[in-house]
C-alpha cells in the first residue's frame, strides 16, 4: 500500500479546503470501503481527511417534518434511531440488511452513498476496467457479470451500486447535501449518482472533491409504512443480487400513492418512476403490481449471466407490494 498522510479536521470549510490542496486526497469515513480498496491498490490517495471528526454526527428533525442525517452518522446509529425506525422503517431495515455489525459500527452515511461497485474486475488491478482505468475496456460484459446491471448500463460499463441504504433513501425522496468549494448545494438523490454512459469513472453529478454534509428526508406520511426487502445468495452478510424499497398508500381499494426503488440492478439506486406512475390509481391486485414492474422492466437490457435478475426483481416487487397492501394472491 502506498504511504499516505492522515489528517483530522474539525469543520466542513477546512475539510473541503484541505482536500483542494492535494492532487490526490480522499475523505475518510469509516474506511470500510476506502481502506479496503487501498489495500487492493485500486485507490492510492496521498492524503486521507478524516470526516468522522466533523460535527456531522447528528440526526435532527427539520422544519418540514422530515429529518436531516449527518454525513458522519454511523450506519448502526442510523438504524437504531427511533425517529428513523418509526417514520422511515425501510431506511433502518436497509441498513441492517447490509454488511455486519462490526462494519456498520464503523461505516458512515456519506461513505455508504459513495461506496464503489463490487464488480470483480474493478477491484482487481491486474484486469482492464473502464471505471478504474478509463479506456482500458470492460471485461465484465463477456465475463463474470452475474451480479451486474440490467438497467441503465452502457457498452462501457455494467457495474452496479451495492448500497442497500441508498435504495431506501431514494425511494423516500432523499436529498443529498454537499459542500463544493465555498458553496452548499442540495441535490435530490435521484440525480446524485450518474449512469455510466461513456464515462464510468465519473460516478456522481457533484464536483470532484465535494463533501457530503448530510442527507435529508422530507416529512412523508407514506414512508411510515415503507419496507425494504433484499435478496442475497445466503441468509446474511452478503451483497444484494436484487432488492426493493417500497411504500404504498391505499384508499377504497385503489393505490393512491406509491414509492418504489430497486437495488443491485443499476449503477444508481434505481427509482422505478414508470412503475410508480403505472400503479397510481390502479386497483390493489397482483395484476396491477406485475404490470407496474413490467412497465419499468421494459427498459431492461439483461446479459446472459444476469438475465435471472429480471424475473427476480419482478417477483420480489409483486411479493412486497402484495405484503404491504394485503392483496390476496
Amino acid at each position, binding site marked *: 500500500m502506498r504511504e499516505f498522510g492522515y489528517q*483530522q479536521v474539525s469543520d466542513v470549510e477546512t475539510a473541503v479546503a484541505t482536500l483542494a490542496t492535494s492532487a490526490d486526497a480522499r475523505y475518510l469515513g469509516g*474506511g470500510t470501503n476506502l*481502506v*479496503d480498496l487501498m489495500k487492493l491498490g485500486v485507490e492510492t490517495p496521498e492524503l486521507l481527511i478524516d470526516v468522522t471528526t466533523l460535527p456531522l454526527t447528528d440526526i435532527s428533525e427539520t422544519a418540514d417534518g422530515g429529518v436531516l442525517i449527518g454525513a458522519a452518522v454511523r450506519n448502526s446509529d442510523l438504524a437504531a434511531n427511533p425517529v428513523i425506525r418509526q417514520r422511515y422503517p425501510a431506511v433502518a431495515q436497509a441498513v441492517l440488511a447490509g454488511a455486519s455489525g*462490526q462494519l456498520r459500527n464503523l461505516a458512515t452515511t456519506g461513505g455508504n452513498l459513495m461506496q464503489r461497485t463490487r464488480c470483480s474486475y474493478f477491484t482487481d488491478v491486474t484486469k482492464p476496467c473502464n471505471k478504474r482505468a478509463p479506456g482500458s475496456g470492460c471485461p465484465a460484459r463477456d465475463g463474470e457479470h452475474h451480479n451486474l446491471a440490467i438497467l441503465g448500463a452502457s457498452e462501457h460499463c455494467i457495474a452496479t451500486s451495492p448500497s442497500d441504504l441508498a435504495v431506501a433513501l431514494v425511494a423516500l425522496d432523499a436529498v443529498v447535501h454537499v459542500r463544493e468549494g465555498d458553496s452548499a448545494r442540495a441535490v435530490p438523490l435521484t440525480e446524485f449518482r450518474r449512469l455510466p454512459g461513456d464515462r464510468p469513472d465519473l460516478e456522481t453529478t457533484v464536483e470532484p472533491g465535494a463533501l457530503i454534509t448530510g442527507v435529508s428526508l422530507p416529512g412523508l406520511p407514506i414512508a411510515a409504512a415503507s419496507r425494504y426487502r433484499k435478496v442475497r445468495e445466503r441468509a446474511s*452478510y452478503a451483497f444484494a443480487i436484487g432488492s426493493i424499497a417500497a411504500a404504498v398508500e391505499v384508499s377504497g381499494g385503489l393505490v393512491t400513492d406509491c414509492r418504489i426503488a430497486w437495488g443491485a440492478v443499476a449503477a444508481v439506486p434505481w427509482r422505478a418512476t414508470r412503475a410508480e406512475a403505472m400503479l397510481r390509481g390502479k386497483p390493489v391486485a397482483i395484476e396491477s403490481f406485475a404490470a407496474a414492474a413490467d412497465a419499468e422492466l421494459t427498459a431492461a437490457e439483461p446479459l446472459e449471466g444476469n438475465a435471472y435478475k429480471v424475473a427476480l426483481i419482478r417477483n420480489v416487487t409483486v411479493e412486497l407490494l402484495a405484503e404491504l397492501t394485503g392483496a390476496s394472491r
Partner: protein
Amino acid sequence: MRITTTVNGARREVDDVWEGESLLYVLRERMGLPGSKNACEQGECGSCTVYLDGIPVCSCLVAAGQVCDREIVTVEGLSDQQGLHPVQQAFIECGAVQCGFCTPGLVVTAHDLLARTEHPTDPEIREALAGNLCRCTGYEKILDAVRLAADRLAADRLADIRAGSSGRLT
C-alpha cells in the same frame, strides 16, 4: 507519530507509529497483544474484532491515527483475575475452538451480543455473529457456546441480585 490510547484499562503510549497503519497492526506488533487475529485484512472475516469506545469494530480497517485518546478492549481484556470470562470458558467447554483463528473475534462479538441481549434467540445469535467467519467448526458448537454463556451469565446475574449486589453487566 506518538499514539496514546487506553488498552484493556491501561494507558498505552507508542512512538514512531505511521498514522496509516492499522489498529490491528499496532495492537499485535507494537503492543504485544496478538489475541486479535489478522486473517483477511479487508473487513470480511471479523477475526480482528475489538471494542473501540465500547463498540465492536474490525480493527484491520481502523487507522492508527484514528485511535488517539480512545478506549480499546481486546480479547485479552475480557478475562480478569478470577479467570476467563464466561464466554471464553463456554467456547472451550463446547468445543467451539478448532484452529482458533476466528475465536478471538467471535468471543468479542458474542461478548457484545450478551452484554446487550440477555437471552438471544438462535436467529439473533446467527445475525449477530454473521460478520465472523469460521472455516473449521461449521458454527454449531459456536452457537452452543453462546447459548451456554448466555445461561451462565443470566444465572450469575440472578445470583448477584439475590445476594443484593448490582449485578454483572458485561
